């Protein structure tokens, strides 16, 4: 059993680490490591201690990079960790596994371990970066491997184990596999990970033990500690910071975080495996519809193996010319009329036109497919927006309305749901026009949810805010198109957009893409210009891929 789980996990991990999404998150992780412990003078910091920062001992760089990694990977890493079961379903691998003795618990355990390997590989790279930063900076020449790695083992790994378990759980719940799952996870992440710093709740980041240890060091150095505050998150600070010398968490201080870590890992295993209660192991009716990616052969269910064999056997004896062997017609199914009885040369002659409105409708249909109530939601949002008066340059409904199309936008820029449909589309004319049709298909839902709030803002004399809302409605589909084109999947957009949205509702300077903060927000023309640039970049990327196909 253990060997099976290990083999499954290893294969799954290998498959995923060769995907572009892995590289993107890994690069983000390494960049975060450099921001958390910058080598030169930098205004950016990840771990805040009022107006201080620590000397780069092994313990300090290990702690700040481990905390930064925990916050980053619990959000961005979740995006690439989930989707493993859906991929098995779509690729047909799931049906192969369903024909093996592997149990549901074993299968889910394999996916869980694979997620751990995914996170573990990134943490290894991050720890290596931390060590390199310490050596380059030269604050301390003494490398203390235990203190460098202890925060990773005590804090980051247990937290990411829980994230890995949740990723498996989300994969087993059909409603949480897509954009809705990304939105739900964002809320969970806000509450449990970012909220962990606030105190009072579960200390998932081990902050209590770390801050207590730093306070002891500061107090021992004669510094007042009452006003000292701690925080984890990417911020810019232009002040000249004082320094303190903290050796990091030692083995003697590990008990508290270790106990939390053990609890977290235990919970993670439970979360990952609980899906076995309802997961159908690719042999249920739900598994069949999504099995289309493999085309004709891949489309068969478990009985398809037999049917394929039947086809091959038939091929061996079938002689259309009737030379010898049983005639094919004798074995023909007599149930219903057979196809191909018409003369195709007598069918209506198709007329060529330009690729335009129909292609746009087709792309829109693909974005909205399977979500028949989506337009009902738009109508409800429109009614709510009409009923609520704007508050200065902001409209209370608009930010939430801009979340509604997220599952649709997640499908832009890639054909992940259509399997190898690129084989069919690759032989169709005018790829640029089709790309534009895909872009406008994403803009239409944005305009549908933003139109009424924009009208209300314009009616209230907030013309700039109305223009800002419309510019924002252009920006997000363009962002989705670029993210989807870059990674050929939905995860990057599902990670980036919630962060952007969070910054926007908190009126973070530069991120208010809907212009809700009035004159402090970026100019609508600038936002529209950025949208154009992002869309152009996505289309250019497609053109390059087409040129080197």
């Amino acid at each position: 059993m253990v060997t099976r789980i290990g083999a499954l996990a290893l294969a799954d991990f290998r498959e995923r680490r060769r995907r572009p999404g892995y590289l993107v998150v890994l690069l983000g992780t390494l960049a975060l490591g450099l921001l958390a412990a910058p080598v030169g003078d930098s205004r950016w910091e990840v771990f805040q201690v009022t107006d201080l920062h620590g000397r780069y001992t092994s313990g300090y760089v290990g702690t700040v990079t481990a905390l930064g990694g925990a916050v980053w990977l619990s959000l961005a890493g979740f995006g690439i960790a989930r989707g493993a079961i859906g991929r098995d379903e779509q690729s047909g691998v799931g049906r192969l596994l369903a024909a093996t003795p592997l149990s549901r618990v074993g299968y889910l355990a394999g996916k869980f371990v694979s997620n751990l390997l995914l996170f573990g590989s990134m943490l290894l790279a991050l720890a290596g970066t931390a060590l390199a930063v310490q050596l380059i900076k030269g604050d301390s020449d003494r490398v203390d491997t235990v203190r460098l790695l202890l925060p990773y083992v005590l804090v980051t790994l247990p937290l990411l184990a829980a994230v890995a378990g949740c990723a498996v759980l989300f994969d087993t719940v059909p409603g949480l596999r897509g954009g809705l799952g990304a939105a739900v996870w964002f809320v969970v992440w806000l509450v449990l990970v970012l909220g962990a710093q606030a105190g009072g709740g579960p200390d998932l980041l081990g902050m209590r033990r770390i801050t207590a240890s730093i306070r002891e060091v500061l107090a021992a150095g004669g510094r007042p500690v009452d006003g000292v505050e701690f925080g984890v998150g990417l911020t810019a600070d232009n002040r000249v910071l004082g320094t303190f010398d903290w050796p990091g968490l030692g083995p003697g201080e590990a008990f508290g975080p270790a106990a939390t870590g053990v609890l977290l890992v235990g919970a993670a295993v439970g979360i990952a495996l609980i899906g076995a209660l309802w997961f159908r192991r690719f042999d249920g009716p739900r598994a069949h519809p999504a099995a289309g990616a493999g085309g004709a052969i891949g489309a068969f269910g478990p009985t398809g193996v037999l049917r394929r064999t039947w086809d091959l056997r038939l091929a061996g004896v079938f002689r259309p010319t009737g030379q010898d062997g049983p005639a094919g017609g004798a074995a023909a199914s007599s149930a219903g009329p057979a196809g191909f009885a018409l003369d195709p040369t007598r069918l209506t002659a198709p007329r060529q036109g330009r690729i335009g409105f129909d292609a746009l409708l087709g792309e829109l249909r693909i974005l909205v497919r399977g979500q028949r109530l989506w337009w009902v939601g738009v109508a409800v949002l429109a009614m709510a927006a009409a009923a609520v008066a704007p508050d200065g340059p902001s409209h209370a409904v608009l930010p939430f309305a801009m979340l509604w199309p997220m599952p649709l936008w997640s499908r832009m820029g890639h054909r992940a749901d259509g399997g190898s449909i690129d084989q069919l589309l690759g032989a169709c004319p005018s790829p640029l026009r089709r790309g534009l049709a895909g872009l406008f298909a994403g803009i239409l839902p944005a305009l549908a949810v933003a139109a009424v709030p924009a009208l209300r803002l314009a009616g209230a004399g907030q013309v700039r805010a109305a223009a800002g809302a419309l510019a924002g409605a252009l920006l997000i589909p363009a962002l989705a198109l670029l993210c989807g084109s870059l990674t050929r999947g939905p995860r990057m957009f599902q990670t980036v957009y919630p962060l952007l949205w969070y910054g926007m509702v908190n009126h973070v300077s530069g991120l208010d893409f809907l212009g809700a903060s009035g004159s402090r927000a970026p100019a609508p023309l600038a936002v529209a210009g950025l949208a154009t640039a992002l869309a152009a970049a996505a289309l250019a990327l497609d053109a390059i891929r087409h040129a080197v196909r």
Partner: protein
Amino acid sequence: MCGCGPAGSISGVTELQILDLTKEYRGGKRAVDSFTLTLRPGVLGLLGANGAGKSSLMRILATVTRPTSGRVLWEGVDITRRPGPLRRAVGYLPQDFGVYPQLTAREFLAYLAAAKGLRRRSARARIEELLELVNLSDAAGQRLGAMSGGMRQRVGIAQALLNDPALLIVDEPTVGLDPEERLRFGSLLSGMGAERIVVLSTHIVPDVAATADRIAVMGGGRLLHHGSTEELLLSAEGSVWELTVPADQLPPLRSRFLLGGTTRTPQGVRARVLSRHAPAAGARPVPPRLEDAYLLLTADRSATEQVAAW
């Protein structure tokens, strides 16, 4: 209804020229190697073992993949530099193709018709007719995800015919079709070959024998043979023998000769032996079938040499 000509055809003879075509993938794997052939209206059967380069060649002809070197000219236009004219004229059914499982067959065809740039009114009528052609009218509103492999294959065939292609490229099209449908589909291809270029790739040699008027055999990315079906059969004339041996004599026979098939009979095992000379006393020469000619052509060199030396 209209008997108008196929998309992309012009008053001259439709022609597809493949000139010294090579496709080399990363890692140096050469899938297509210096392939040269000119295609005119008719059905070309493309035969070859797995990995022979058939699918790579077809992907290049459908403009899905670019060649590493060489040219493909459609009506005199290089399809690598200007793929547009060919794409308006081609119908392509790959061996493996994806679908959007939430779309119905009708919606999926409408989507691809739009992607091919067909006008909506003519496309709508043609989609209904094609659904009837592939016997899916009753299932037109059914989601693709709920369809069987055979039904989805027929949707694939329908999409390849959407634009009334002047060049039809089909890769293993009969997988999932029942025997009667396979027969009729073969006839359909033959009929289309009267004024269109049809490239049919399949492992099922009898399908090619029944449908194609010319055959190209590929091996190791190269064109091993090109000619009419009769020419290929002639190349195997006098090299096919039948011999009945006791069952325990079959393994040694198999080790010494290339066998085209065996049949159990009350007298023993009747073996079809491919050899330039009579393999044993009592062996009688029989007319070759296309499989025999194909096997003789593609058998690995050592086996062929063994056969020739016998």
